[in-house]
């Protein structure tokens, strides 16, 4: 292998990183090649002693993405890290993708429940308040009859709305926890993989 091939493979494995990070990494290895050649080594010798460029690239990329996910929370970042971990050849399709998708599914389900409880409560209360107006436009609208029943529906609506709101706030917290947890799990995973190499 010669310098050009080494750099090409390395570059290929740094896809998706900021140009700044990418250039910094490439700078280091280019300098290494330049100084190695100045001291009379051949391309092959230098490549040999540097090690596998794909491995170097994947590991550098993983570490930077992990860093980014730790600094700025965003669903996209976590997803990137999960995907990058596959490219490292983890045994992770089972150990990461399974639990990750499962938990993500549960999170979506809980979100849907919390939001729909909140919205249905809001809708019931608003319906009772605006019933006189609504029935002008839609005369045969189905509605509970009698002041007592209306009041019950109205109050039940408020209760549901409050419960739903609380559940939604809870979900915001839970989602943050899930995010942190995923990043940390991947980090410990990465450490284990590195140790075993």
């Amino acid at each position, binding site marked *: 292998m010669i310098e050009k091939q080494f750099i090409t493979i390395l570059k290929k494995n740094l896809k998706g990183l900021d140009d700044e990070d990418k250039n*910094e*990494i490439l*700078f*280091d*290895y280019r*300098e*290494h090649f*330049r*100084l*190695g050649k*100045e001291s009379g080594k051949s391309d092959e010798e230098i490549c040999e*002693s*540097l*090690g*596998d*460029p794909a*491995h*170097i690239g994947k*590991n*550098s990329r993983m*570490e930077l993405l992990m*860093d980014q996910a730790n600094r700025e929370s965003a669903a996209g970042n976590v997803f990137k890290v999960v995907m990058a971990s596959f490219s490292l050849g983890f045994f992770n399709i089972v150990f990461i993708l399974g639990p990750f998708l499962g938990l993500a599914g549960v999170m979506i389900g809980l979100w849907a429940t919390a939001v729909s409880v909140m919205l249905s409560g809001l809708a019931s209360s608003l319906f009772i308040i605006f019933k006189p107006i609504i029935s002008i436009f839609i005369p045969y609208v189905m509605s509970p009859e009698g002041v007592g029943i209306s009041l019950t529906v109205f109050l039940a609506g408020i209760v549901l709305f409050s419960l739903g709101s609380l559940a939604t706030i809870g979900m915001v917290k839970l989602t943050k926890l899930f995010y942190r947890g995923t990043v940390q799990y991947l980090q410990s995973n990465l450490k284990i993989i*590195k*140790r075993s*190499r």
Partner: protein
Amino acid sequence: MNIQFKKGVLEICVLSLINSRDYYGYELVQDISENINISEGSIYPLLRRLSKEGFFETYLKESPGGPPRKYYKITEEGILRTKTIKEEWIEFTEQVKILLNKENQND
């Protein structure tokens, strides 16, 4: 030598060398690989990580007959870290030595 040993020791060596004077990447890699047999490519990610953690600063310096080289310089934090990690290492190896001697006595 066992690969796990090397990885742990590498960080101590890098810190300790740069603690003694400023290095540019290539000469640091040469100094280390002269004594420890390791794939040289793995030293650069370590240098980047330790810089990011605030133990080194980098600067570019002109070199005779070529483009400028990137030098690594130890920071205050780095000096502290070197001291701690060296002490830990010495303490650890002392303990291992004691254990290994016990084994010899039992023989």
